[in-house]
């Protein structure tokens, strides 16, 4: 179990509000295994149960059924909190404090004694590029700077596991890249990152594995390459005679021919070679062969819509 950073077994969180008649399962029978050292993407639309799961992992709320383990210990075990860090979505930090003060505050919560505390705070300010703004109050910080302070407070304890909830929400593209680079940097240091997001473009590039959650149920799980397998290849050719259409169509895929210009969308398997062979044999002129990988966005939309149909 110790090679797992996070493990949940049939985790269910049911909310039965005082006034709502129907209990709602925010998370249902979730079985999750996150390995040490990987970046795990935890995806799903808003309200899918991502934050609920994270709160269970942090011990802020308690599961209705099932179990959750973090770093080999039951979720919420106070000892764990020395080894994990959490950055909530759009957090507010006491904005009357300066960057240095807020990091010092959190360092005190970790019980880091002086002089290590100041050393660590300075190090992290440097690392997130806020050394120069360290003595300005947080209310003068941009959104990106605040998020960097947020990351810095996560790193105070040199955690084994970082749980980041929507780390790039509301940031401009440059700040996006900053945060993404920091995430990769952390992975290189051997940290486990558990990133929840509904924004896909950044995450698909850095996550080793993803799980997709919809309405509390996990609908997809796998290595990112596996999930994205099954893209298509587009072949465009010119001066193609009409008689090639039928053999190509037999290979599968979409085919269109108009005024001698052929466009073929082929599933990504060996048949592309055959298409090219047929076109060239018929005297056609290949203009381009372009592979289209399936994007995470596509997978996401397909999965969620699929889930809706279920």
């Amino acid at each position, binding site marked *: 179990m110790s090679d797992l950073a996070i493990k949940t077994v049939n985790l269910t969180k049911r909310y039965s509000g005082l006034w709502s008649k129907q209990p709602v399962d925010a998370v249902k029978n979730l079985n999750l295994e996150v390995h040490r050292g990987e970046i795990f993407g935890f995806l799903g639309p808003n309200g899918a149960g991502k934050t609920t799961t994270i709160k269970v992992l942090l*011990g802020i709320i*308690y599961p209705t059924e099932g179990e959750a383990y973090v770093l080999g210990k*039951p979720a919420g*075990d106070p000892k764990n909190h020395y080894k994990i860090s959490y950055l909530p979505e759009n957090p507010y930090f006491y904005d009357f404090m300066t960057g240095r003060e807020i990091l010092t505050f959190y360092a005190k919560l970790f019980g880091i004694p002086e002089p290590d505390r100041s050393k660590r705070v300075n190090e992290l300010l440097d690392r997130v590029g806020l050394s120069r703004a360290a003595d300005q109050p947080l209310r003068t910080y941009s959104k990106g700077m605040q998020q960097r302070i947020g990351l810095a407070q996560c790193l105070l304890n040199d955690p084994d596991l970082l749980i980041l909830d929507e780390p790039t929400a509301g940031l401009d593209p440059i700040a996006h890249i900053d945060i993404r680079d920091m995430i990769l940097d952390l992975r290189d240091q051997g940290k486990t990152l558990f990133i929840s997001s509904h924004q896909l473009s950044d995450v698909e590039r850095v996550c080793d594995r993803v799980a997709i959650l919809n309405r509390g149920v996990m609908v997809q799980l796998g290595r990112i390459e596996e999930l994205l397998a099954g893209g298509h290849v587009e072949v465009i050719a010119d001066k193609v005679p009409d008689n090639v259409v039928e053999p190509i169509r037999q290979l599968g895929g979409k085919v269109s021919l108009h005024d001698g210009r052929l466009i073929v969308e082929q599933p990504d398997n060996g048949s592309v070679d055959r298409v090219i062979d047929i076109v060239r044999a018929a005297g056609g002129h290949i203009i381009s062969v372009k592979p289209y990988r399936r994007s995470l966005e596509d997978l996401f939309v397909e999965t969620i819509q699929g889930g809706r149909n279920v």
Partner: protein
Amino acid sequence: MKRNYSKLWVAIVVLLIAQAALQLRIFPLWVRNYAPKQATPIGLAPEQLLVAVAGFREFMAAILWVRADGFFDSGNYDAVLPMLRLVTWLDPHNIDVYSTGAWHMGYNFTDESQRSDRRYIPMALKFLEEGIQNNPTVWDLYFEMGWMYYHKIQDPTNAVPWMQVANEYKDMIPARRHMLAHALFKSGRFDEAVDFWGKLFLDAEKDRGKDWESSNLYDVRQKNLEDTILDLLRRYGPNPETQPPVDLQFDATVKVVRPRVLLVEGKLGIPAIGCRVTVILRDKGKKLEYSPKALKTFTFEVDSKLTYMQDSLAVREEKFRREIDMSKDPKMYPFKAEEYEVEFIFEPRYASPNIQDRIGSDGVGMWDARYLETVREKPAPIEVPEYAQVSDALRREVENPTREVEYRRVRKVVTLTRADILMLGKRGE
């Protein structure tokens, strides 16, 4: 993850019991020291109605009291009374308001000179009683009550118990203690008066050299002790100056000279100046009861149908004569009853010392064939609040007085009808 919270529950139970135990200890002290006790007809604690200005009730009271003083200065007495009610309700611990308020009622709501509207006196007593109930641990109001009897009502017998209670307080102003000795003496308790002067003298002796005030107090008490003993020796010792008795040949007549204007005249056979005869005109049989218990609750309404006039007539060359004009103030003298009695009294307890040397302060040296009376009385029982700082012995004594006093006076009563006084129908006497 479910945890075991039994320790916290134990802590809660223990703390709940601890706070309850403390609260039970605090409550009696709170009642004693801080409760806004309400011996008022409103029957509510001020907090209960004045929640809106919770922290400010004493402030409101102080503001109103300043206003009330202004009303008094401008002679608007009708406005002062409700203000007194409101102020003492808001801040029942403001001694100043009780003592000054009672003084306003007892002394200042008057017509002119000696002729005050005595219908206000029971009200003043009731007001003081309320103040005492609300402030049992403060000596001032017991003293004020005693003073009201001693000086305004001229009833030393009933002044004594209140002064005795005030005297039990250690922080009482030393000179005020003398009033108990004077009251004891005037009411005829000569033995106790001498004992008390002696005690006061010995007390003063201890601090004699401390400062000017202490030495002065010592001197005053020494002189008073000596004078009292000398007076008693002169009046009641061997070969007393009070014997044989003087024949007063007391008499008095009343004539209605104009509607509501009486001419009173008469004789009092004491060959010295300084005697005063009290004259009272009242609805027949309606003696004013000077007791806090005369009124069930404090009210600032006087009985508007009741006519009560009291005046004091100076005696010159053994005669007295005065025209009493009651036509100017129909509010004070409504004359609503059919029959009235006019009472003339001379009693020696408040006479000047030279006269008392001759007739005695209790009247043993006076005699009258027709109108002489001997009054035997005990002080009326008084109600001492639970938290008053008095010894049990004194509490028993004042709540159930045993000491009887005796004095002589002359008293004549003349009856008049309403028609007589208003001169309805025929003109005449």
